[in-house]
């Protein structure tokens, strides 16, 4: 069965510092991969997605993620964090081989705190 692991429950970084949020997945082939952000009281917003092609994908708000097949990872990165980036981040995988389009498997999330 597909699964997603986000090993870090909570991360605190200083404003201006770099950020990397980890995501590992379990899937028989190359899945569709997503990162979503959820701010307090807000809906989930798509940051970026990987379907195929270039393994380094760029997203909104200055985020990027790199798909590494050998490590079954899709880590999210940002070179310089802003205070407004404080939120919860979810990695998700989708079934490439069929099933419903939106039947995503989400990780448990990583809460990001940003200190001044």
């Amino acid at each position, binding site marked *: 069965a597909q699964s997603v692991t986000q090993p870090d429950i909570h991360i605190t970084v200083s404003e201006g510092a770099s950020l990397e949020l980890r995501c590992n997945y379990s899937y028989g082939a190359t899945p569709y991969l997503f990162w979503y952000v959820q701010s307090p009281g807000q*809906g989930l917003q798509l940051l970026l*997605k990987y379907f195929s092609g270039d393994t380094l994908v760029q997203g909104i708000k200055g985020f990027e993620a790199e798909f590494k097949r050998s490590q079954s990872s899709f880590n999210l990165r940002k070179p310089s964090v802003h205070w407004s980036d404080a939120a919860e981040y979810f990695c998700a995988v989708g079934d490439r081989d069929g099933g*419903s*389009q*939106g*039947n995503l498997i*989400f990780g*448990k999330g990583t809460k990001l705190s940003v200190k001044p």
Partner: protein
Amino acid sequence: GAGVSQTPSNKVTEKGKYVELRCDPISGHTALYWYRQSLGQGPEFLIYFQGTGAADDSGLPNDRFFAVRPEGSVSTLKIQRTERGDSAVYLCASSPGGTGMNSPLHFGNGTRLTVT
């Protein structure tokens, strides 16, 4: 334009009662999804509609949960004989539809259900 709207934003009910949660998708979106997010967890897929029909209801936890989308727009998630374990944030998402996962999901802000 208007995003996905969910009402009510908060719902408190007593154990054993019946509740209905409403989702207004983005106009023209043919695909609609319900997810459930328990405290400290990522969203879990419940059901997916393409048009009026439930294309995938494999995530519904038991027969107390039911969802409809009679005119292919607004959807209602119905929970009978609520239990304390049903307490969660219920998220709705819509997408333009189409094949594969190229259609991004647009999430609402959710309905926080508390069963006392």
